[in-house]
């Protein structure tokens, strides 16, 4: 991926939809979104446990990334950089919710929308059930294990990148991961 910004400019005077497209394509940001949106949405979905909140978070994370894209120096991979923004964003949201001691119950229909639209009803049901079990399992884990497992599950991230994102050594990640897997398996069994 071309990380160094193409230092051109889009023409904001174009009529509405054209200006939107021009801004969107500017510096290849459309490609960044296409490549990483699913990973960021999934992380937000499983950290926040609410599809609507995950949509908002995904929008906000990419908007923040767009604003900072010109200053992104490529010290880390784009994916790692986006994850960092997403983790901070979700943490802030969770802290704000905890402060208000509020928790919204996701509408059942929204969970169904999270499944791939091309799937059969049976498959959607299975996916929905699996998704709900995974969500309940993750919510039963300590926050640190939850984040660790979600990050390690992304094959694009190295242990070093996970260590960077969670502020610990790669060895510590491996040690905690071992325990996190056990806790996850036990918690998952209880959701059956």
């Amino acid at each position, binding site marked *: 991926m071309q990380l160094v910004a193409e*230092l051109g*400019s*889009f023409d*904001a005077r174009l009529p509405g939809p054209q*200006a*939107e*497209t021009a*801004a*969107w394509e*500017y510096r290849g*940001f459309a490609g960044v*979104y296409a490549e990483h*949106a*699913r*990973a960021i*949405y*999934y992380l937000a*979905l*499983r950290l926040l446990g609410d599809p609507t909140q995950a*949509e908002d978070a*995904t*929008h906000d994370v*990419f*908007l923040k990334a*767009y*604003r900072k894209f*010109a200053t992104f120096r490529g010290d880390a991979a784009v994916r790692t950089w986006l994850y960092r923004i997403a983790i901070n964003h979700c943490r802030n949201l969770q802290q704000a919710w905890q402060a208000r001691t509020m928790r919204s119950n996701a509408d059942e229909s929204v969970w169904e*929308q*999270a*499944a*791939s*639209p091309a*799937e059969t009803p049976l498959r959607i049901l299975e*996916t929905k059930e*699996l*998704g709900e079990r*995974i969500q309940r399992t993750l919510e039963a884990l300590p926050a640190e294990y939850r984040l660790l*497992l*979600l990050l*390690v*599950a*992304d*094959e694009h991230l190295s242990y070093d990148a996970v260590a960077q994102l969670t502020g610990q050594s790669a060895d510590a990640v491996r040690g905690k991961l071992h325990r*996190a*897997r056990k806790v*996850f*398996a*036990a918690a*998952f*069994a209880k959701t*059956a």
Partner: protein
Amino acid sequence: MDPRPPASRLTQQEQLAEQQQVAQTTAAAHEVGSPEELLRQDARHTTVPERVRDRLQRSIAQEPQPRKPWWRRLFGP
């Protein structure tokens, strides 16, 4: 003579429950494979609603246009 007291009915039930729990945990571990695999499978079946892209596209269009670098401002487009 066996010094151990005979196992009570309750102890047998406890043992049975424990065996069942172990069997369930083993089955669950087998079912899960690894948590990462399960999460990957879940992620693969999760799609980002199109409306997020549309909304982001509109938001980005409203952002102020980034400044041109100084040499462009000085020497033209």
